[in-house]
């Protein structure tokens, strides 16, 4: 298990929320910071259509006022200039935020994806809760792992079904086979829904199911400092990260 956990993140990981407030942005930052804390070069990318809050939530070291819109418009840039467009976490993750004065476009993500690959970094994409938008085509063109985040609530589990349907409709069974459902507990009183039942229902339909426990630091809603996460939370991100690596390598570990 230890070896598995030490694997680097794939070139691209897609984080999708099953509903609003699912924890997709938090999980994006958790995965990216986990890799960065191990010394990996990783960028958390705001891949929402009109701009999310990944920088506001995660940039505990440097908050850039620039966005990926400007980076793409600038064309090829040197590494130090690239860094200038990025916000930073104290763990070392670079964050490319969308300012939101333009909505996302396919061409933009085509350019950005190429730029990130040329730099040899791992990208964790925060997609928000929308997978079918056309601008995501460059991200969906490669068999990236999909981390589908769902809060541990009955209503969210029920909405998870439409999110799974969306993945199936967009990417077919191969997309579902690359999906690790990640249950995020945002309730300090404990796990409110039977996750084992969810495992039973989804057995064989997705790659796997992981859980992220309630974390007091995350529950405060303040800017996230990775070093302040509980050990169990960091271990959970390690597991999800390992799942993403396994998926990228095509290891058929299903529920």
């Amino acid at each position, binding site marked *: 298990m230890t070896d598995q956990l030490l694997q680097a993140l794939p070139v691209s990981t897609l984080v999708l929320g099953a509903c609003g407030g699912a924890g997709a942005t938090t999980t994006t930052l958790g995965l990216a910071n986990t890799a960065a804390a191990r010394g990996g070069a990783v960028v958390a990318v705001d891949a929402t259509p*009109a701009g999310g809050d990944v920088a506001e939530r995660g940039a505990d070291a440097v*908050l850039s006022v620039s966005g990926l819109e400007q980076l793409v418009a600038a064309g090829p840039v040197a590494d130090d200039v690239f860094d200038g467009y990025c916000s930073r976490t104290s763990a070392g993750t670079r964050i490319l935020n969308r300012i939101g004065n333009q*909505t996302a476009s396919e061409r933009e993500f085509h350019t950005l994806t190429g730029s990130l690959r040329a730099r040899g970094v791992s990208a964790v994409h925060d997609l928000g809760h929308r997978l079918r938008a056309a601008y995501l085509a460059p991200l969906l063109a490669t068999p990236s792992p999909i981390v589908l985040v769902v809060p541990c609530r009955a209503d969210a589990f029920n909405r998870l079904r439409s999110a799974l349907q969306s993945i199936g409709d967009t990417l077919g069974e191969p997309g579902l086979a690359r999906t690790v459902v990640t249950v995020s507990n945002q309730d300090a009183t404990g796990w409110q829904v039977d996750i084992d039942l969810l495992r039973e229902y*989804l057995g064989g339909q997705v790659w796997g199911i992981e859980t992220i426990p309630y974390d007091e630091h995350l529950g405060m809603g303040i800017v996230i400092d990775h070093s302040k996460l509980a050990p169990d939370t960091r271990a959970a991100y390690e597991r999800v990260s390992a799942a993403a690596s396994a998926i990228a390598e095509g290891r058929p570990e299903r529920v």
Partner: protein
Amino acid sequence: MTEPPNRAPLDRFSHWFPPFASAPAPRSTAPAAETEQQPPAPTWLTPGDEPDPTPPVRGGRDKQTLAVAGAAAAVIAVLAGVVAVIASTSGDASGTPVAAADSGWCVESRDGSTETGNGPGGTSDGVAAILGFDHAYYVARSGAKAREVVAPDAPVGSAETIQGGIDSVPEGTEHCLAITETEPGRYAVTLSELRPDGSAKKYEQVVTTADRDGRTYITSIGDAK
């Protein structure tokens, strides 16, 4: 046997798994469910929060210039209220199909006095407030954020009421606004809604705004007569 015509579609995703039942209401530990609710910091919408299109500048945390999800437009808003009104009183305003398109269906643009878009908005002017309201409604899906750009005394529902409306809109619904200022502080708004199932609707609304302490807030949302 005659099947009730509307029975089957009620749970279109039951082939994944049957619905989970809601958790029983907490009994012994009463107020725990509220612990994660953090009221938004009152300073999150400051005039300096507008998106800055300038080239890269780096700064510390105090230079929060990133787009504010806040506010914006529109109206629909309190689905529980306004949309209900539209549905019941204005036949031509509810459910009028609009051209559905996947990509680029909402291109930010200005045509004369009409601004089109679905950006994050802000509180710099009326258009920004309307944009911000609907961005909070459809993108952030946060009643609290939507209420942030509505004047406290405005006859618009509470954050909780707005949240109820938001929750009634399917996750993944996209929106687009065409906003025309018809007189100072009064806007004719066309809100187009594109739902995940491909259905589209259009709402015609009238929104008023007012400046308070250097910011602009929505003071009323109504359907166009």
